[in-house]
C-alpha cells in the first residue's frame, strides 16, 4: 500500500502540473488568438479533466494512508509514529491529520475536493472557471511538491519493523479531534477558491461583479467551516487542556483567527461591490490577504516559528511555505499592478452616515483586530530577532486591545442594518435608533442594579465587569435592532397577505435568505459575546478531598463519593467519583480522571463538566497528594459558557439559511395571488 500511495501522489502531482501548464497555454492562446496544433478550447478541456483526475489520484493516496493505519502497517514511518494497535478505530482514522505529513495530505486532498467541484461546475462561466482552475492547480502543485519531496507520508521505516506503534498524542484522543482539524482545514483550504476566482477575474479583466455571485456560496461555506473549526478547537481546549478556559490566545489559535477576521470583512464588503460597484480594490486585497493568512497560519503551525501546544514538530518545510507565500504575493501584486485600472469604483462614498460607511468601519475594525492578533503572534519572534531575547505576548495584551475592538464591532453589527444605503438623514436615524437605544439603557440599568459596575475599572482595575457591562448592554441593543428588522419586514408581508406574524417572518426570510440569514448570524454573535462576558465572573477552588469530604462553590456542593484507578490496553487511569448537590438535591455525579497512555507514555487530564445555561461546573482531577494519597480536585464555576456553544449553533443555522436560495419571484407571486388579491408591494418585496 505505501508504494501505491506514493505512486498516487506522484501521479496527482503530474496531473496538477499538466492542469497548470496546459491551462496557462490554453488561456494564453485564447487571449492572444494564437493557435497551436490543437485548439485552445480542447487543450483547456484536457486541463480541466486532468484537474478532476488529480482528485481521484489524491483520494487514492489518502485512502492508502488510512488503509495503512487501519491495518497497523508500521513499516510506514508516519503510521509507526502516530498510531498503535490498541488505538480505537476513529482515532486511527484521525491519525491521517495528527502529524505533519498526514495533515499536509489532508490539505492536498481537501484542495483537490474543492477543485473537483469547481471543475465539475465549470458551465457556470467556462472562461472564468478555466482561470480559477488553473490558479487552483498552481496551489495544488505546491502542496503535492511538498508531499512528494519534503514531507512524504509514505516513507518507510529503516531496519526491522516494530511490532507496535508509538501511539497517537493523548491530547488528540478526544472525539472533537476527529472533527475539529478537518473543519479547520476545510476553512483554510476553502479560501483558495474565492482567491482563485478573484485573481482569475482580475487577470481576465472580468466585466461586472458576477464572479462575486459565483463565489458567494463558496465563501460562506468556507467561512462556516472555519467558524466551526475555531469553536470546535475552543471546545476541545476547554474540555481537554484542563485550565478552565476555552481561548488562550495561543499562536496557533491566533493563526486560525486571522483569516477568519479578514474573511468576515470580505463577506461584508463584497456586498458593497455587488450593490454599488464600490471597494473593488479593497475586496480583491481582502481575499488575497485572507488566502495568504490561511497559508501563513499553516506555516506557523508547521515551521516551528512559534511554540504552541497545537504546533507540529519543528521542520524544514517552513522555507517551502515562505517561498510559496512570496510567489503568491508576487503574482497578486503583478496582476494588480497590470490591471488596477479595471478596479475603478463605479460610485463614491456619499456620506459618513450610511450603510456603506458602516461596512467600511466594520472592515477597518476587523482589520485592526487582525493586525492586533498578527502583531501579538509575531512579537516574540520579532523581539528575539531585534533584541536577542524573546518577549512573550499573553492574554492581558489581547484582552486590553482585542476585547474593546470586539465590543465596538458588536456595536457596528447593531447599527449597520439600521442605516440606509448612500446616506441616512437625522430623521431616519432617530426613527430607527430609538428602540435599540432604549434596550441598551434598560439593560444597562438592570446590569448596574445586579452589581455589574463598569466604573470598577477606575478604582480596582477590574476589567472583567467593565467589558461584561458593555458586551451585554450593546448585545441587547443589537438584538433589539435585529428583531425590529424582522418585525418591520414581516409586518409588511402580514398586512398584504393576511398571514400571522410568524408565518410572515418565515416568508420574509425565504424571500431574502442572505440578508435575514445574516441577521440570524449576527444574533448568534451576540449570544457568543454574552457567553464570553460570563468569564468576568469565573470562580475557582482547589481542595484535597477524602472520602465523603465536600467543598462548596456557588450554589453547588461537591462531595467525594470514591476515588480509584483502572486500566485498559490503551491507558491507565486514576479518577474520583464526585456527587454534586444543589441544596439537598443530588444533581449529578462527575468523574474527572487523569490518564496515562501506554504507547506514548504521556499523561492526560480528562475534565468532568456539568453544564447548564447559567454556568458550568468544571472539575479537574489534579493528581494525588503523595503524602496523604488523597485526590486533589480543582473546581471552576464558569458562568454562561454554554451560551457560547449555543451561539455557534445559531451561527450555523443562520449561515445555512443564508446559503439557501431565495424563494423565486414566480413562486412568491403565485403564493401571494392565492393569499390576497393585492400584493404588488410584497412581490416587489425585498
Amino acid at each position, binding site marked *: 500500500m505505501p508504494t501505491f500511495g506514493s505512486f498516487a501522489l506522484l501521479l496527482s502531482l503530474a*496531473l496538477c502540473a499538466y492542469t497548470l501548464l496546459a491551462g496557462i497555454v490554453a488561456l494564453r492562446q485564447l487571449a492572444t488568438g494564437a493557435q497551436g496544433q490543437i485548439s*485552445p478550447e480542447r487543450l483547456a*478541456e484536457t486541463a480541466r479533466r486532468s484537474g478532476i*483526475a488529480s482528485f481521484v489520484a489524491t483520494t487514492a493516496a489518502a485512502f492508502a494512508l488510512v488503509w495503512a493505519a487501519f491495518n497497523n502497517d508500521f513499516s510506514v514511518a508516519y503510521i509507526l509514529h502516530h498510531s498503535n494497535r490498541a488505538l480505537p478505530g476513529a482515532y486511527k482514522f484521525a491519525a491521517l491529520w495528527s502529524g505533519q505529513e498526514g495533515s499536509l495530505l489532508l490539505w492536498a486532498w481537501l484542495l483537490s475536493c474543492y477543485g473537483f467541484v469547481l471543475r465539475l461546475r465549470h458551465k457556470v462561466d467556462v472562461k472564468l472557471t478555466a482561470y480559477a482552475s488553473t490558479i487552483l492547480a498552481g496551489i495544488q502543485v505546491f502542496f503535492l511538491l511538498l508531499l512528494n519531496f519534503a514531507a512524504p507520508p509514505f516513507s518507510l521505516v529503516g531496519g526491522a519493523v516494530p511490532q507496535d506503534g508509538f501511539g497517537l498524542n493523548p491530547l488528540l484522543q478526544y472525539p472533537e479531534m476527529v472533527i475539529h482539524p478537518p473543519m479547520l482545514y476545510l476553512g483554510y483550504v476553502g479560501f483558495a477558491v474565492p482567491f482563485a476566482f478573484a485573481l482569475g477575474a482580475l487577470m481576465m479583466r472580468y466585466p461586472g461583479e458576477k464572479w462575486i455571485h459565483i463565489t458567494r456560496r463558496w465563501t460562506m461555506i468556507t467561512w462556516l467551516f472555519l467558524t466551526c473549526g475555531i469553536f470546535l478547537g475552543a471546545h476541545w481546549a476547554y474540555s481537554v487542556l484542563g485550565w478552565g478556559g476555552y481561548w488562550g490566545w495561543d499562536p496557533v489559535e491566533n493563526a486560525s483567527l486571522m483569516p477568519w477576521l479578514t474573511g468576515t470583512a470580505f463577506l461584508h464588503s463584497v456586498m458593497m461591490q455587488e450593490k454599488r460597484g464600490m471597494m473593488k480594490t479593497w475586496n480583491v486585497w481582502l481575499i488575497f490577504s485572507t488566502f495568504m493568512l490561511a497559508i501563513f497560519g499553516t506555516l506557523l503551525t508547521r515551521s516551528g516559528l512559534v511554540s504552541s501546544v497545537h504546533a507540529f514538530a519543528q521542520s524544514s518545510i517552513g522555507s517551502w511555505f515562505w517561498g510559496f507565500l512570496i510567489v503568491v504575493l508576487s503574482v497578486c501584486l503583478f496582476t494588480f499592478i497590470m490591471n488596477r485600472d479595471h478596479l475603478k469604483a463605479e460610485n463614491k462614498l456619499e456620506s459618513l452616515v450610511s450603510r456603506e460607511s458602516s461596512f467600511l468601519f466594520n472592515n477597518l475594525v476587523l482589520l485592526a483586530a487582525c493586525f492586533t492578533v498578527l502583531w501579538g503572534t509575531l512579537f516574540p519572534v520579532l523581539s528575539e530577532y531585534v533584541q536577542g531575547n524573546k518577549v512573550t505576548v499573553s492574554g492581558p495584551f489581547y484582552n486590553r486591545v482585542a476585547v474593546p475592538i470586539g465590543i465596538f464591532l458588536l456595536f457596528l453589527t447593531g447599527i449597520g442594518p439600521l442605516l440606509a444605503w*448612500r*446616506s*441616512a*438623514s437625522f430623521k431616519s436615524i432617530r426613527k430607527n435608533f430609538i428602540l435599540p437605544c432604549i434596550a441598551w439603557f434598560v439593560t444597562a440599568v438592570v446590569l448596574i442594579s445586579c452589581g455589574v459596575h463598569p466604573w470598577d475599572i477606575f478604582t480596582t482595575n477590574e476589567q472583567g465587569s467593565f467589558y461584561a457591562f458593555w458586551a451585554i448592554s450593546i448585545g441587547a441593543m443589537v438584538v433589539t435592532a435585529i428583531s425590529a428588522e424582522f418585525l418591520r419586514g414581516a409586518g409588511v408581508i402580514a398586512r398584504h397577505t393576511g398571514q400571522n406574524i410568524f408565518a410572515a417572518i418565515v416568508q420574509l426570510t425565504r424571500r431574502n435568505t442572505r440578508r435575514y440569514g445574516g441577521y440570524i448570524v449576527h444574533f448568534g454573535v451576540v449570544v457568543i459575546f454574552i457567553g464570553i462576558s460570563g468569564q468576568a465572573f469565573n470562580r475557582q477552588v482547589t481542595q484535597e478531598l477524602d472520602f465523603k469530604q465536600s467543598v462548596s462553590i456557588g450554589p453547588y456542593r461537591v462531595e467525594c463519593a470514591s476515588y480509584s484507578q483502572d486500566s485498559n490496553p490503551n491507558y491507565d487511569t486514576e479518577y474520583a467519583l464526585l456527587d454534586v448537590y444543589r441544596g439537598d438535591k443530588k444533581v449529578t455525579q462527575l468523574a474527572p480522571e487523569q490518564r496515562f497512555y501506554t504507547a506514548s507514555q504521556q499523561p492526560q487530564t480528562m475534565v468532568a463538566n456539568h453544564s447548564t445555561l447559567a454556568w458550568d461546573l468544571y472539575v479537574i482531577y489534579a493528581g494525588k497528594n503523595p503524602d496523604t494519597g488523597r485526590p486533589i480536585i480543582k473546581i471552576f464555576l464558569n458562568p454562561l459558557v454554554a451560551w457560547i456553544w449555543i451561539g455557534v449553533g445559531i451561527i450555523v443555522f443562520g449561515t445555512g439559511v443564508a446559503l439557501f436560495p431565495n424563494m423565486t419571484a414566480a413562486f412568491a407571486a403565485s403564493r401571494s395571488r392565492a393569499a390576497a388579491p393585492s400584493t404588488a408591494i410584497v412581490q416587489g418585496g425585498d
Partner: protein
Amino acid sequence: MIVVACGLLLLVLLVYVFYPERHVEAQRQKTRLEYLHERKDVLYENLRDLNFEYRAGKFVQDDYAAQQADLENEAAEVMAEIELLEAQPTR
C-alpha cells in the same frame, strides 16, 4: 498486485483526461451588453429593496425619494446604453 493497481489507476486517468471530447464548451469573453443586463438586474433589486424598506417604515419620505431618484437615474443610464447596443447590428 500493487503494480497492477498503479498501472490501472494510471491508465484509467489518462484515458479520462485525453479521451477526445466531441462537444467542448467555448470560452468566450463576456460582452458589455451582458454586463449591462447584470447591472440592470442589480439596480432593479436595489430598487425593490428600497421600496420594501420604505414600506416597512425604515426611512422617512425625503430619504426614500432621494434614493429612489438616484437609483432610477442610474437604471435609466444603463437602459439607454442597453438600447443603444441592442440597436447596433450584430457582427
